[in-house]
């Protein structure tokens, strides 16, 4: 996928920003919906599919947002309801001391200089209303106490800035009280949804996913076609015909991936990587057309929507009678699987504690949820020397690894993918320590913001990541950015094209498949992308 970057100013120009806030207080600066920095609103048809309130056609640049008559009442009630249900929300409204440690931790603030992108101020957008509506001091002292009236301008501001947060949780790492802006943004978005104010790039996938099982709206026959097409490609490459188990009852393992992996390059190569690996292992697994989405844009919508979309995973596992679930490379999907699924749709007492049929390893860390991350699975295989690998096939790649926000900060999946990468390629270099692991920077397009109309903001948000990539590009000649996230594989492409041209994005299992020496394979001359393998360039020329 190559996006059109022609509308975006050149990097020097884009970064001609000030990190100094204006003289005017933030409450007096109205929101400005500048093209390229916001996402289009959710279409009525998508909200209708999901029975969500106030479906209508509107635009953020309209003066009148066609909010429901009693919108204030709705927000107030919704606010109170969530304060009662979430200790996190109440606490994060109350205890911030505005020390400012979070200020320059946000990729959107670093890349835009807009003070309302400082996590503390993003939260204050909401706290100011909280004080006015729910605290005595706010009611009495008003602005002096940091309180303000709930007006339509506030709603507009919320819409702009809660859709300028990718819920990456980087700020929460640095906050002395662990205040998590993702939590606040999620609440903000829930309140906005009560008024029918969502973005289409999140709500269309949600509506699709609800009906067809995946964000892209691919129907069962289309899904089958796609996977079989990959199988053909694999046969061309390796000479091995692999089969694609679909909706297979009695399989041991249900395999779930983000739909991005079978939709667009370079995710598709990762998908082919999974298929080759499983074939080589002779794994008794199955794909599902109904649970054809591990990703969950419900996370970018509301807690209820997470549950509504996630329910199909366990339901399908039960229907197919599998023993446990294996999950592909995806960031936010793994936040849902790790932190929400079992609580929302468990207990998964009909499944067994995941055990690798190849190595016999019992995944004790997943004994309740019964779902294992693909890099946990593959690293275990490698540790037990169950795979024949030729990392030399990846010698043309000088690789660095981008920790995706959610696996790093909501799961702690840090060493597993690195272990796998080191086994399959010979040239691996880390980016600077302030930009990886728990301090990793977002791609700039997570949480539903990876749409084209928001491109300028995405590139601003992607600046810290792009900058770190360029650093290792200049220092070590890095030409491949590996990641374990489907959104990354889509959004880091323009980020690299813009900030570090020449660096391409790859999934970890694409590299695994390139290095994997399969039984009975013909001599490979190209990698999965059809580019000549190192040392095979001449062969190609002939």
């Amino acid at each position, binding site marked *: 996928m190559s996006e059109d970057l022609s509308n975006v100013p050149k990097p020097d120009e884009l970064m001609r920003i000030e990190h100094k*806030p204006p003289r005017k207080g*933030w409450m007096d600066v109205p929101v400005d919906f500048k093209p390229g920095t916001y996402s289009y609103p959710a279409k009525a048809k998508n909200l209708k599919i999901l029975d969500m309130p106030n479906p209508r056609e509107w635009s953020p640049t309209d003066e009148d947002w066609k909010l429901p008559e009693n919108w204030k009442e709705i927000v107030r009630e919704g606010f109170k309801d969530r304060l009662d249900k979430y200790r996190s929300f109440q606490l994060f409204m109350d205890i911030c001391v505005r020390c400012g440690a979070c200020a320059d931790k946000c990729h959107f603030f670093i890349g835009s200089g807009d003070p309302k992108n400082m996590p503390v101020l993003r939260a204050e957008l909401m706290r100011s209303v909280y004080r006015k509506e729910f605290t005595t001091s706010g009611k009495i002292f008003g602005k002096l106490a940091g309180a303000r009236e709930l007006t339509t301008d506030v709603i507009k501001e919320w819409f702009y800035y809660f859709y300028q947060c990718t819920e990456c949780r980087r700020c929460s790492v640095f906050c002395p009280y*662990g205040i998590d802006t993702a939590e606040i943004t999620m609440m903000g978005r829930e309140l906005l949804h009560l008024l029918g104010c969502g973005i289409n790039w999140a709500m269309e996938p949600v509506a699709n996913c609800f*009906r067809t099982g995946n964000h892209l709206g691919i129907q069962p026959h289309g899904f089958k076609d796609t996977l079989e097409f990959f199988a053909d490609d694999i046969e061309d490459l390796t000479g091995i015909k692999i089969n694609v188990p679909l909706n297979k009852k009695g399989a041991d393992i249900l395999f779930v991936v983000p739909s991005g992996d079978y939709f667009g390059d370079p995710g598709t190569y990762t998908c082919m990587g999974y298929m080759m690996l499983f074939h080589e292992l002779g794994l008794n697994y199955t794909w599902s057309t109904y649970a054809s989405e591990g990703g969950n844009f419900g996370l970018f919508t509301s807690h209820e929507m997470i549950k509504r979309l996630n329910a199909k995973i366990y339901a399908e596992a039960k229907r197919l009678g599998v023993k446990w679930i294996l999950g592909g490379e995806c960031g936010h999907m793994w936040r849902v699987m790790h932190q929400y699924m*079992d*609580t929302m749709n468990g207990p998964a007492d009909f499944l067994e504690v995941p055990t690798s049929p190849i190595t016999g390893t019992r995944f004790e860390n997943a004994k309740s949820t019964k779902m294992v991350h693909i890099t946990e699975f593959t*690293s275990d295989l490698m540790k037990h020397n169950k795979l024949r690998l030729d990392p030399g096939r990846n010698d043309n790649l000088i690789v660095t690894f981008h920790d995706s926000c959610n696996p790093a900060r*909501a799961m702690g999946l840090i060493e*597993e993918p690195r272990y796998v990468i080191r086994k399959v390629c010979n040239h691996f270099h880390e980016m600077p320590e302030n930009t990886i692991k728990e301090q990793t920077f977002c791609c700039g397009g997570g949480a539903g913001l990876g749409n084209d109309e928001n491109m300028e903001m995405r590139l601003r948000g992607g600046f810290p990541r792009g900058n770190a990539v360029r650093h290792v590009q200049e220092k070590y000649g890095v030409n491949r950015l590996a990641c374990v996230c489907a959104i990354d594989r889509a959004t880091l492409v323009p980020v690299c094209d813009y900030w570090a041209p020449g660096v391409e994005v790859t999934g970890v299992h694409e590299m695994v498949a390139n290095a994997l020496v399969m039984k009975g394979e013909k001599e490979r001359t190209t990698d999965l992308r059809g580019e000549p393998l190192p040392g095979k360039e001449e062969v190609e020329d002939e």
Partner: protein
Amino acid sequence: MGLWFSLFTVVILVLFVFMGVGVVGLNSLFGIVIPYAALLVFLVGVVYRVGKWARAPVPFRIPTTCGQQKSHPWIKANNLESPYNTLGVIVRMALEVLLFRSLFRNTRAELRDGPRVVYGGTKWLWLAGLAFHWSFLLILIRHLRFFTEPIPFFVNLFESMDGLFEIGVPTLYMTDIIILLAVTYLFLRRVVIPQIRYISLAADYFPLFLILGVVLSGVLMRHFYKVDIFKVKELATGLFSFHPVVTEGIGLAFYIHLFLVCTLLAYFPFSKLMHMGGVFLSPTRNLANNNRMRRHVNPWNYPVKVHTYEEYEDEFREKMKAVGLPVEKE
């Protein structure tokens, strides 16, 4: 606006004591009634606020993981930054509460030409924060010499450590100097760093000025405007044993000190100072990252409308059959 309002308020509070004690002579009001009221508001207020948080459930286990999870036995799990058991959580919380672990991580992002962004470590906020909070605690413990009879052994221990250098008579306490420097730093950064100034509210300046007032009045009466500490202790122990006595001739500086402390106590539960209790309850810090090992129960987990497999198959059955996908109903 917030800055001047806060400063003005603290000045008014001080003038209030000048009038009340110095002119009108309401010693029992300022020496007995207000302290009791303030302490009561503080205790009830703090319990109420924490109770209110406690009543709200923690529906999801959402720790922010800052280190390697526990997965394979051969990958070293980081039990402090990504705790997988209760011990890990306790140590993580202890590091957070006692040493401000998260603030220690602080960095500063700087935009350079290129465009490039670089990150430098910055420990000043951490250092000042730690110095301030620990000094405050030690000063509080030191004050037990006025509150208790007989004086517990550890009070003398802290006191002699604090006055180790034996500078001046009475001895200059290190914590007094440290807290003055720390509070001044915390105030200055709020004013000087444009971003922090932009986000600062009256609620941020007021406690700083109030605490500065408390410290200054304390230092002044120890070293310059002497008060009769014998009588101070008589008053304090009287209060704490519910036999309050009004004593004359303590000195105005003491009443200013006491009144500012009372204001701080009474203000505490209604302010951001509640972060003292809140930090213990923060779900991103006080929960173990053992989500997939042990199920977390959400007390209000309600059923939601889902799209079942049956509904799905009903819609796509013919298409599924056409490509040979198995179906439940023919």
